[in-house]
């Protein structure tokens, strides 16, 4: 099994679509990499893969090696900077054209998920994050079955469950938590995404999708609440255009001033800023929040044994 060199496998799940599974997966990966861990990301959203776009590697193609496939390298390890390597695998890399629909029924999806788990050569990895499509259907059943059968028990660390605060979303995510209970996947914690938006003009925080729903749900299910993540349009700009996040003077996150130093030039053309995504991400207001969440996830993984459930 190609997962043999992987230390911990973490699933990123949500019953609801569009709550930010892929962007959370991306940020967890960047954050883990910044903490010096080697990270792999496996995207099993077959009909709507977003991970290639998130890492700005849409044009990459998978290389075949004898007996399997090599994941795409986002950046290599940099021991002097304390940064771990980051590798990615997604169905997006196999499509001839990016707009092509992938219309697959269940059995085909099941076969693909199995193949992704067994035939991708992951090198030594501290963490393998698996990004999933919304729901509790073919991909999830196959993932759970295959991992519970083939991965070593200490390998399958558990799942990070993502939600947004509003009731319409938590109603679906509650189903996902029940899925984890039924399949025996340990829940490492719940992240509440899109919790509040700070107006860049007046710094007023509006809870567009309400607030607190994720925390209430975590309490109801007796699982760890990992934290709230606000909406930061600068993160989207970073993903979409490759621009380093910049904030007006006086922007503070948890009391820490993260505003862009005055005098720094802002190139307003369509070019991407140079440098690795992982370095640019350090300037994002969400990076410190994820730093804390990642530390909590790591400690939850290391506790093991399913104490939280």
């Amino acid at each position, binding site marked *: 099994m190609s997962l043999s060199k992987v230390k911990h496998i973490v699933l990123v799940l949500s019953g609801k679509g569009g709550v930010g599974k892929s962007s959370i997966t991306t940020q967890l990966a960047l954050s883990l990499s910044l903490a010096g861990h080697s990270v792999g990301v496996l995207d099993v959203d077959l009909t709507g893969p*977003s991970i290639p776009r998130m890492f700005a590697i849409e044009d990459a193609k998978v290389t075949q090696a004898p007996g399997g496939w090599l994941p795409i390298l986002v950046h290599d390890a940099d021991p002097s900077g304390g940064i771990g390597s980051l590798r990615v695998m997604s169905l997006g890399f196999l499509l001839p054209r990016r707009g092509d*629909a992938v219309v697959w*029924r269940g059995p085909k999806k099941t076969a693909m998920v199995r193949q992704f788990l067994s*035939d991708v050569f992951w090198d030594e990895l501290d963490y393998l994050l698996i990004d999933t499509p*919304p729901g509790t259907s073919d991909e999830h059943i196959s993932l759970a079955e295959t991992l519970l059968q083939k991965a070593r028990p200490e390998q399958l660390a558990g799942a990070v469950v993502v939600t*947004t605060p509003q009731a319409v979303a938590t109603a*679906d995510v509650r189903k996902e938590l029940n899925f984890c209970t039924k399949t025996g996947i340990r829940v490492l914690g719940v992240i509440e995404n899109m919790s509040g938006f700070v107006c860049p003009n007046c710094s*007023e925080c509006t809870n567009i999708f309400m607030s607190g729903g994720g925390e209430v749900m975590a309490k109801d299910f007796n699982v760890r609440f990992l934290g709230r993540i606000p909406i930061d349009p600068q993160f989207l700009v970073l993903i*979409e255009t490759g621009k380093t996040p910049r904030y007006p003077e006086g922007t503070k996150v948890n009391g820490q001033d993260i505003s862009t130093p005055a005098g720094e030039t802002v190139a307003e053309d369509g070019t991407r800023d140079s440098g690795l995504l992982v370095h640019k991400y350090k300037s994002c207001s969400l990076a410190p929040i994820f730093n804390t969440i990642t530390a909590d996830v790591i400690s939850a993984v290391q506790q093991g044994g399913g104490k939280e459930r």
Partner: protein
Amino acid sequence: MAPSLEAPEPVEDVLANPLKQKPNLVAPEPEHCPGPESEQAGTADSCAGCPNQKICASTPKGPDPDLPLITARLAGVKHKILVLSGKGGVGKSTLTAQLAHAFATNPDSTVGVMDTDICGPSIPKMLGVESETIHVSSSGWSPVWAMDNLAVMSIQFMLPNRDDAIIWRGPKKNGLIKQFLKDVEWGDLDFLLVDTPPGTSDEHLSVNTFLKQSSIEGAVVVTTPQEVSLLDVRKEIDFCRKAGIRILGLVENMSLFVCPKCTHASEIFKATTGGGRALAHEMGIPFLGSVPLDPRIGMACDYGESFFDSFPDSPACVALKHVVRGLAEQIGLDPNQVVPEG
């Protein structure tokens, strides 16, 4: 030797091989089963040695015999409209619910909403009928009536507990969608809105196959402005094209956010590639409008209220009305009859 990680098969092949009738199996489906309803049933490489092989192979080929029953059941439905998006959480269910409310404001129209999102049904909550259950009579299942002229069907009505997970693989989902069309007494409807889950998989293929004969009016495609979302929506449009589903129009949701304190408009989901309007232009499909992000829409959905009744003067409501009127025009109706101006 490892199996080849081949490129996905062409959509045309999948569409050209619709599901057959499911045979009665003598043993559970094995690991690499191609699906007892599929064209390769009983003949695929992995079927060798399966106790079901003979049964699967001898099931008559050809279309599902239930198709005429579905067509007969839906004979009284005038307009069948799908709400689609390749991406999750862009507001398919919200738009479906608000479209239903908008169509139902005319007391002479009867509206039906069918929720085909099996794993994450949102429609019952958004229409305020989450705790209802289905009644079964000799002539079929009665839908839940959210209003006098608004009928709803969703798997949520069949769950013993609200939070139960529905851990189903594709074939089981297809079976339920068929039942929703074949066994539910929809009666005479002016509109049947079909809400779908994200993606292009079993549910979408089934709805397309089952409704083909009784003709689908078309699909409304929903997106949000950022490219990560447009990327998946492009795939959905590709699917519609290949399946021959007419696209009635594209709606861009969550476009701008107006700060309630300083009225500064922010592009939260920034349209770095031109957003929905540019995509509609690129694909040559009608653009029905942009709906701004208004926290009150989300709240109306959480409480199952009609956004049109609760906040008639908000910019989002005006934008939604514009979308409904545009949609009415696309299906050849007089917009003033569907949503009166003002």
